[in-house]
C-alpha cells in the first residue's frame, strides 16, 4: 500500500476525480491547501496599492492505493491535472504500514 498525495490546481479536481473513478480508484480524501513553488504568488489590490500573496489556492488529494495501482493512479493524475504552466503541482508517494476500515475493523489491503 502506498499513500499518494497530489497537490493540484483546484479546477482540476473534477477531471481527476472522474478519471480515477473510471479506473476504480474511488476512495480519497481532499482538502483545500495553499501552495508555493516556481509559480510566483499573485499581486492583489488594496484600496490604492497592492500586496503580494505568496500562497496560491491548491487542492490536495490523498489516496491510499494498493501497490499495483500506484502506477496507473499516478499516470492518470499527471495526465488529467496538467496544463503545462507553472503551478500544476506535485505528486508524492509515501509508504504506508497499515490501513484500517473503521466500519468493519478490517485491516491491511482489504481495508482500502
Amino acid at each position: 500500500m502506498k499513500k499518494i498525495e497530489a497537490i493540484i490546481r483546484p479546477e482540476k479536481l473534477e477531471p481527476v476525480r472522474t478519471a480515477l473513478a473510471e479506473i476504480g480508484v474511488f476512495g480519497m480524501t481532499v482538502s483545500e491547501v495553499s501552495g508555493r513553488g516556481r509559480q510566483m504568488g499573485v499581486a492583489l489590490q488594496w484600496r490604492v496599492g497592492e500586496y503580494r500573496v505568496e500562497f496560491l489556492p491548491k487542492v490536495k488529494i490523498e489516496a491510499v492505493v494498493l501497490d499495483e495501482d500506484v502506477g496507473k493512479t499516478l499516470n492518470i493524475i499527471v495526465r488529467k491535472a496538467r496544463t503545462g504552466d507553472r503551478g500544476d503541482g506535485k505528486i508524492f508517494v509515501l509508504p504506508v504500514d497499515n490501513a484500517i476500515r473503521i466500519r468493519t475493523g478490517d485491516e491491511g489491503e482489504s481495508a482500502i
Partner: protein
Amino acid sequence: MVNNGDTAWLLVSAALVMLMTPGLALFYGGMVRRKNVLSTIMMSFVLLGLIGLLWLLYGYSLGFGPNLGGIIGNLDFVGLRNVGQSPSAVYATTVPQLAYMIFQAMFAVITVALWTGGVVERTKFSAFLILAVLWFTVVYCPVAHWVWGHGGWLAKLGVLDFAGGIVVHISAGMSALALALLLRPRKGFKEKEPMEPHNIPMVIMGTGLLWFGWFGFNAGSALTSGGLASSAFVATNASAAAAALTWMVLGWIHRRPSVLGVATGAVAGLAAVTPAAGFIPPLAGVPIGIVAAVICYYCMVLRAKGGIDESLDVWAVHGMGGIWGTLAVGIFASVAVNSAGANGLIHGSGIQLAKQLAGVASVATFAFVATWVLGKIVDRIIGLRVKEDEEVVGLDISQHGERAYGGISP
C-alpha cells in the same frame, strides 16, 4: 404644492429602492461560486455609480422629459435643467420634482443590475460596463418613457404598470435571456459540474433587504402617502408571502422544503405584484403570488432542461413573473382601489387585459431583440466573455485583482 408628508414618504422610498441594489448584490453574490462573488457583487454595485450618474446627466430627460412622438423624452431635463425643488406639472405633483427624479433613478439602477444575474461568472468587466451604458440608453430610457412618460405611446394606449412590471422586470428578464444565449454557458455547465451556491445566508440577507426595499418600490410608486400607498404595501406583502410559501410547497413535493426556494419564491411574488400593486384589491396579491410561484418554478425547470445557462434565472423569475403580473392587472384591477386605474376581467371588462397583453408583447420583444443586437455589437468590438483561463481562475482575481475572503494570514 409640495406636501411634506408625501415628500417624506417618497424620499424614504427612494432610499429603500437604493438599498435594493446592494441587496441584489448579496442575493446574487451568495449564489455564485466563491471565486466569482466579488465580480458578481460588483456588477450590481458599480451601477449605483454608473447609472446613478447617467440618470442625472441625461437618463431622466430621455425617460421623463417632454415627449417626442410618444417614443422618448427630449433634452429639456439634461443635467437636471428645469428640475428643481418645486413639483413637476405632470408627475407626482405634490412632491419636489427632484424627489421624483431621484426615486426614478433608483429604478434605473436596479433594472440594469437585475439582468446581470443572467451573465455572471463569465462576462468581461469592461464589456459589461459598455453594454450597461448602451442598454440603459437604448432600452431602459425609451421603455420607461413609453410606459410612464407623459405622452408615452404605451401610456397613451392605456397600459398600466404601477411600479415596473414591464419597465423593470420584463425588460430585465428578457434581456438576461438574450445575453445568456449570446454568451453561452459557463465552463462546466454542460458537463453538469456542481455549481454550488457559496453562501446561502448571504442570499437570505439579500432577500431580506430586497423585500424591505420593495415596500419603497411598490408602495412608494403611489407617489403620495395615504390610502393608495397602504393598499399597494399590503398587496406587495401578500404576494411575496403567498409566493414564498407556494415555492416551498412545490419544492417539498419534489424533494424537501428549501431555504433557497423560499427566498426565490418571495422574489418571484414581489416581482409579479409590482405592476399590479396599486391597481388591485390588496388580497388579490395572494392569487397573484401563488400563480407567480407556479409559473416561475416551472419556467426555471424548463430553462434548465433547455440547457440554457441563464445563470441566476432572471428570465424565469423576473421576466415571466413580470409578464404574469402585468397580465394580472387586466384580471384583478379595480377602479374602486385606484381611480386612475381600470377595471379588469373580474370587475367586468376584458379590454384592459388586451391592453396589458399589448404592453407585454411589445416590450418583451423589443427588449429581447434590442439587447441581442447590443450584445452582438459589444461582442464583436471587444468581446463579451473573459478568456477561458480567466474564467477558470475566477473573475474576482482575473477582472478585479481581488479575492473575497482572505487566505492564510498571520
